[in-house]
């Protein structure tokens, strides 16, 4: 019989959000303090109105067995981080209860408590103490931590002189060597280079085999599927699904809620555009031939735009620019790329539809932003819509050699290779 290590019973957390914030509140943001001190003073005595209350977590219940590694997934703002904050005692729940059987180590962000002026050695002790380790414990693990972080030459250098990679490595190393029965981890792997991410995930795998209980919050679906037999999907502060991670992840991905895959404006009058053009619809979807409805690295995609041409005889054509989440242009394409005749003939007034076919095996696992461009007279950009679409391309890990972590690269083309064994001189025939 396995004992539960973590028992969560109808745990809820309510935030009161500032009134001015309500309309644009995508994410749970605690109280915001406004410029007016008296307004603020007054508002803290006023009972919170219905529209000011945000349940970041509502009646969440689950159990995690001892030695189990469980993934927690969900889109940004769904309540995953709030859950970890409650479990690691950073803040208190509004109602409900959780029992944790064992010492708890939390790793909500690497580098917690590092002081830039102190050396690597000093910071190891300091951040160990913040995480609840005793000096003797840190001393016992010291060499291991240093070896793992690969910073032995810089131990007596202030960490402010460290490269960001070294900093992250050292921080993760300290936390990873915590010997707690329960470990809470939040997205620490989003930092560092690919090689180090791999090392961290490997270390996590080790942790799991030592019989320790791990709650792992991540956006990295491949890592969740590989490391966690079970997963919890949290949506709008509630448990949407709990079960085998493969199943939960695929259900989660199919909702693709964090992306903007289609936008429609029914009336030209209220649609974005100008005196020449109004946009009716933009969208991205898997090609009809695609096997799955998921947008994966292996899915051929169709980028569609429908726009109203307002002035008869205008020579307009559409174009797309695909960017990464950090605004690096991946490629630009326009309807007249292959055929210069497109866009030189005048269009009648009315709706125009263009489809661009993006082949499978081009984009990497990433969030891409798609910008819409409309050109006039072949070259001049007369309309541009930033972030017309946001696409999340996922990696199902079907490609040989793909591991837990995202391969770096803006694109991830599937290329042809030829490998021939030539033999060595002297060994021929």
């Amino acid at each position, binding site marked *: 019989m396995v004992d539960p290590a973590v028992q969560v019973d109808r745990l809820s957390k309510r935030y009161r959000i500032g009134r001015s914030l309500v309309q644009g509140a995508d994410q749970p943001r605690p109280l915001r*303090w406004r410029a007016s001190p008296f307004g603020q003073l007054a508002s803290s005595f006023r009972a919170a109105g219905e529209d000011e209350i945000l349940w970041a977590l509502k009646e969440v219940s689950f159990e995690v067995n001892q030695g189990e590694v469980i993934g927690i997934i969900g889109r940004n703002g769904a309540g995953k981080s709030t859950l970890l904050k409650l*479990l*690691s005692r950073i803040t*208190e729940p509004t109602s409900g209860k959780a029992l944790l059987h064992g010492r708890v180590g939390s790793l*909500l962000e690497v580098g917690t*408590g590092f002081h830039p002026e102190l050396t690597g050695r000093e910071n190891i002790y300091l951040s160990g*103490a913040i995480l609840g380790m005793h000096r003797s414990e840190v001393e016992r693990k010291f060499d291991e931590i240093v070896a793992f972080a690969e910073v032995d030459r810089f131990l007596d250098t202030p960490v402010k002189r460290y490269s960001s990679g070294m900093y992250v490595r050292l921080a993760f190393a300290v936390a990873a060597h915590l010997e707690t029965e329960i470990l809470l981890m939040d997205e620490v792997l989003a930092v560092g280079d690919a090689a180090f991410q791999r090392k961290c995930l490997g270390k996590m795998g080790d942790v799991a085999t030592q019989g320790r209980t791990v709650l792992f919050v991540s956006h990295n679906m491949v890592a969740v599927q590989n490391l966690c037999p079970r997963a919890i999907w949290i949506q709008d502060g509630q448990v949407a699904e709990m079960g085998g991670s493969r199943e939960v992840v695929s259900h989660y991905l199919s909702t693709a809620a964090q992306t903007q895959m289609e936008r429609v404006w029914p009336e030209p009058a209220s649609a974005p555009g100008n005196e020449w053009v109004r946009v009716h619809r933009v969208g991205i979807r898997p090609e009809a031939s695609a096997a799955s409805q998921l947008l994966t690295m292996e899915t051929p995609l169709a980028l569609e735009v429908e726009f109203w041409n307002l002035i008869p005889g205008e020579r307009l054509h559409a174009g797309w620019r695909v960017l990464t989440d950090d605004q690096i242009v991946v490629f630009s394409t326009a309807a007249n790329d292959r055929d210069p005749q497109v866009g030189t003939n005048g269009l009648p007034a009315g709706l125009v539809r263009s489809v661009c076919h993006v082949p499978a095996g081009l984009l990497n696992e990433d969030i891409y932003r798609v910008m819409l461009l409309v050109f006039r007279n072949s070259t001049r950009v007369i309309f541009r819509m930033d972030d017309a679409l946001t696409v999340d391309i996922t990696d199902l890990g079907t490609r040989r050699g793909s591991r837990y972590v995202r391969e770096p690269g803006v694109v991830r083309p599937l290329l042809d290779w030829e490998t021939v064994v030539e033999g060595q001189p002297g060994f021929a025939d």
Partner: protein
Amino acid sequence: MRVPASSERSDPSMAARDLRPMTITIQRSKGWASLGLRDIWEYRELLGYLVWREIQGAYRQTALGMSWLFLRPIVNMLILSLVFGRMIQVPSDNVPYPLFSLAGLLVWGFFSNGAMRGARSLVANMNVISKVYFPRLIIPIAGASSGLVDLGAAFCVFFVALLLYRMPLRVEMVWIPLFTLVALGCSLAIGLWLATLSVKYRDVEFAVVFLLQAMMYLSPVIYPVSIVPESIRWLYALNPMTGVIQGYRWALLGIEPAPGAEMVLAVVITLVGMIAGAYVFRRTERTVVDLL
């Protein structure tokens, strides 16, 4: 939030720890929770590191480094002696004014630095607080205690000055640690209250400077208690630092009167302020992260 059976963590052997499984219960705490002193004892090493970080971090990459610890009391003393001793001719109870002012400055500097650091500590350490749990009381305690090193350095300066003026060491100096403790308690009390307030109201950042400045003029730092009118002495003694500074001057320089009723009052006020401050702080700490 309570941690029922966590006190054995200091045991160096892992096996012994494992024999005592502990359960952490997470739920909303109601009313006035305990101060969690046991938890603080658990994390005493962290307290040490934080104090040390405060001191070390402050003087790294400064040209004068740790000399600042000595320079500050010397320069302060010289300025006070010039302005108040020479120019304004403030009486100093028949003791050379530099020694007189230095004895007051010693403990005043310790107190005001501690109160200031304590008041700012919570906001300054928000990045850590929002990422990891540890007893939050440690932060203002570390802030207030970090001044002990400055005090030690200032004492070195004082003893050198004592030597230069050929003044004797006195037996009464053994009382100094006790008076220092009262000053520490006093700075912690103010630090706790202001730190709690600073979470909601960033005004504290500015207010603390004014508050300490006002308190300095209302404490006998640059002048002797003897020039305070008798009729308002009782009001004056409500400031615990009055008793502490008087105690310091008596123990170090033999300036009468020896602390009596004032000191008792100072201790009582300090204790009340500190304990009340700790409870208020504990009450806020549960959800302090949400207020940011």
